[in-house]
């Protein structure tokens, strides 16, 4: 019983930690740190056990009837573990980073409280066993991230927070209509491999309409153009929040929702019959190119990274849209790979801002001499994003490209090539500046690195990004896991 209810425990681990921190309040600094780290480690262990269990084919589920005929259902399938493992690992690292980053700033109880709730909501999204449950956690995620986005309490951050809410709650409202609609026509919202819907449930136009409602709802968080507007503006949040938003929580929840929608709600076959797979792939392809072009034009480091996220997250949707085993692997594995690389980049951006007040690309000249380790981690993240072998990003792109060819969509290869070139165009000049350009005169010479608690998480995630690429063939690597999921989808 306690073992099969594991999904509940992983959600509760961060939920209870978050609530406890909120209730305790500001003065309890040491206790807070202990709760934070304790819960993050406990969760990592629990997720590890669950990962092992799912690999051996154990069933995990927990249900609680909320309404007659509707259950809050948590479960763990292979897909769940992809997001759950990623967020468990990155939660621990981000917590370490954030404790150091916010060392002296006010309102830390509120910050870490909602931080915990945010991770709990992400876990809920990962473990949700039906659309109803998914929606509950999806909205909870919106609510838990808002205080983080507006954390600084400046007018600018409050405006960004409002924009964020307008998009996410608006998307959520459409999604709710779609979910209730599906429940009414099919009598269930339960995720099933191969989908719970079939053509007989409703006329094609209605099914397409409902798909669209859900796709818009997920698309807002996954930052699919033109629903991405909130994301670059949310950059006013503290760096650990941006890291979490971009790598683990918000955008991933959106992308994960698209995966569930296609695989477990409509099923690949029905999605293709309704012509919706091309909608997904087309929107994703457009977003990939558009995000990269916009990233080229940003001088602010975090904004450049934000547009890069817009672009990179859509790889996941692209893989799902193209369909076929290889593209599916490419899309799914990118869910993890993008997370590792992007969190590295945001940690580094935070280090630059925190240590030397560098927020613009144009101020990065020669920073490699002052902060060699941070710049090294940044370089790994950037090269990974471009897709240089053997880094993680290369693996994703390789499978996506092969998948496109396999499915006969040669334009996918063109999109990938264009995106790679654009990635190079907006990352390589940054690297050149950092390593080779002379530093400005007013910067002190000698090495002045970020504090260790900021540096270690950055290096660790960079190492993970390398490892995910080099060791892609090892058991429990993200790639092997994506292959396992794909085998179960296409069996």
């Amino acid at each position, binding site marked *: 019983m306690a073992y099969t209810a594991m999904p509940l425990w992983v959600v509760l681990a961060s939920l209870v930690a978050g609530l406890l921190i*909120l209730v305790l*309040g500001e003065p309890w600094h040491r206790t807070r740190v202990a709760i934070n780290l304790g819960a993050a480690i406990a969760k990592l262990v629990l997720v590890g056990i669950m990962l092992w269990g799912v690999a051996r084919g154990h069933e995990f589920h927990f249900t*609680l*009837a*909320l*309404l*007659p005929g*509707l259950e809050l259902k948590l479960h763990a399938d292979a897909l769940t573990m992809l997001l759950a493992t990623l967020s468990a690992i990155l939660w621990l690292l981000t917590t370490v980073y954030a404790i150091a980053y916010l060392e002296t700033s*006010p*309102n830390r109880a*509120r910050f870490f409280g909602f931080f915990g709730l945010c991770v709990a909501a992400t876990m809920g999204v990962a473990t949700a066993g039906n659309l109803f449950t998914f*929606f*509950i956690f999806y*909205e*909870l995620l919106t*609510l838990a991230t*808002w*205080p983080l986005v*507006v954390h*600084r*309490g*400046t*007018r600018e951050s*409050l405006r960004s*927070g*409002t924009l964020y*809410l307008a998009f996410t*709650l*608006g998307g*959520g*409202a*459409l999604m*709710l*209509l779609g979910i*209730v*609609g599906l*429940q*009414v026509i099919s009598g269930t919202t339960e995720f099933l491999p191969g989908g719970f819907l079939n053509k007989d449930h409703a006329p094609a136009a209605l099914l397409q309409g409902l798909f669209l409602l859900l796709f818009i709802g997920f698309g807002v968080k996954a930052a699919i153009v033109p629903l991405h507007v909130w994301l670059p503006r949310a950059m006013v949040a503290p760096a650990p929040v941006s890291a979490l938003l971009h790598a683990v929580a918000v955008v991933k929840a959106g992308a994960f929702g698209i995966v569930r929608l296609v695989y477990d709600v409509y099923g690949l076959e029905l999605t293709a019959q309704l012509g919706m797979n091309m909608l997904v792939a087309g929107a994703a392809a457009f977003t990939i190119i558009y995000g990269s072009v916009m990233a080229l034009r940003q001088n602010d480091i975090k904004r450049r990274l934000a547009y890069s996220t817009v672009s990179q997250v859509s790889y996941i949707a692209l893989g799902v849209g193209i369909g076929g085993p290889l593209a599916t692997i490419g899309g799914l594995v990118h869910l993890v790979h993008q997370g590792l690389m992007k969190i590295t980049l945001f940690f580094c951006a935070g280090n630059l801002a925190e240590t030397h007040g560098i927020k613009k690309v144009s101020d990065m000249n020669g920073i490699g001499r002052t902060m060699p380790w941070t710049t090294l981690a940044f370089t790994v993240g950037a090269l990974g994003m471009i897709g240089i072998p053997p880094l993680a990003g290369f693996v994703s792109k390789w499978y996506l490209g092969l998948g496109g060819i396999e499915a006969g969509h040669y334009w996918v290869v063109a999109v990938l090539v264009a995106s790679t070139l654009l990635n190079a165009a907006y990352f390589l000049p940054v690297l050149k500046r950092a390593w080779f350009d002379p530093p400005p005169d007013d910067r002190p010479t000698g090495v002045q690195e970020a504090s260790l608690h900021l540096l270690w998480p950055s290096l660790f995630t960079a190492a993970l990004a390398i490892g995910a690429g080099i060791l892609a063939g090892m058991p429990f690597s993200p790639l092997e896991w994506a292959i396992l999921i794909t085998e179960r989808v296409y069996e």
Partner: protein
Amino acid sequence: MAIEFGPAMVTALIFGPLLTGVLAFLLQRPAVADYLSILIATVFLALLIPFSGLVLLEGPLLYQLGGHPEGIAIPLQVDGLSLAMLWLCSILALVVAIYARAWIRQQKPAAGGEYRVLWLLLWSGLNALFLSADLFNLYVTLEITTLAAVPLVILSRGAAPLDAAQRYLFFALVGSILFLLGVALIYGHAGTLSFSLLAESDVSGPAATAALLFMTAGLAMKAALFPVHSWLPLAHSAAPSPASALLSAIVAKAGVYLILRLWLGPLAEAWTPSLAQAMGLIGAIGILYGSYQALRQNRLKRVIAYSTVAQLGYLLLLIPMASLMAWNGVIYHALSHGLAKAALFLAAGNLIMVLGNDRLRNLAGCDRMLSKNIMAIGIAGVSIAGLPPTGGFIAKWWMISAALEQGQWWWALLISLGGLLAAAYIFRILRHAFFLPDPYAESPLREADGKLSRALVWPPVILALLAVFLGFAGELLAPFLEIGAPNGRLQP
């Protein structure tokens, strides 16, 4: 002679608060009134548990008060809808009584004693209203609630409350006349006013429709439904905060409660589907207009009061959607809105006590010093906006399901849009509270910590948490809500 539990409970619910009020008035001992209010609310809550069980087992109860034969006696009925309102009333009576006691001690208003007596009288009237099953008694109970509610508004002295109370009184009295006119028409038409006897006779035709419309118009004035809502935002924001909470959470709902009773009960044959859609439309305009106004207000209590105008609109959607799911959804909405709205007003009361007024821009920095209050506003607001995991969400889910199941998708769209608008005005409040002004040092907030006792801080938090609890209790409560649902009138 053995006294049966059911009738005894019903009698106690109606006369208990009244007698306490009289006693408190005669004794002129505020402390006694406080303790007695808290005590009977606690006793009611404890007794409502077996009472609800009884109703669940035996189905809807019908009593003839005093044991007189039908037609002469005063008939009282208990079904899921009345049970829900009785629970809401008792929970709020308890929590608000605890709050009000501390509030009166801190504020020392001239009229603290009157507040207690008026509330006890109002409470009796409300309980009687939720239990009555004939039109004349409903008229009487309606008058009692009006006459107790209006003076509550004037307890905060000053010109504005007086003006607000005057408008309230005017609307309420015109409403009474219209209602009485309808009652007279029905009596002339059917020769009886008892719900059960009316249900047996055929109440239809133009006269019945006219009577229904008269009564509906009268009740709409008392409930402040759009377009006769203009008194509510003034009155509810001018009243002392504990009174605002009770007025907005329960009293305004009593009018809508009766409208639903009439339309789905004895007068269900007197209307056509297009009339029902028109009622829905009135609700819809109320939702949109109330939310729009809430977004424009610069004072916290005004925002919350306009939100009530909007939230009452949802209750009317039961008439066009008439299905069991909509019935559940609407009652659930009434419950969660009651808890959340009271939480908002009590929290606002605390903020006013610290800040001296309720201008939104003065809230800057509040989340630091008054974090529990802001948290209560946040959680209650999430329920008002119908977001998970709260009772408001469950209500919204049910209502949207009901709309889509019957193909009346326009109501689903409306409910969605209404939720977004509510989120907009709620987060507008929070945004003001999260703003960190630079010269923070001079804010009165710095001394806020010691100023609020626990009896002031916790009630709004508890009410907000109860709204969250409702988010998990749908399965538990659904069987109770469905007791005595007018199955003949509702789609399965």
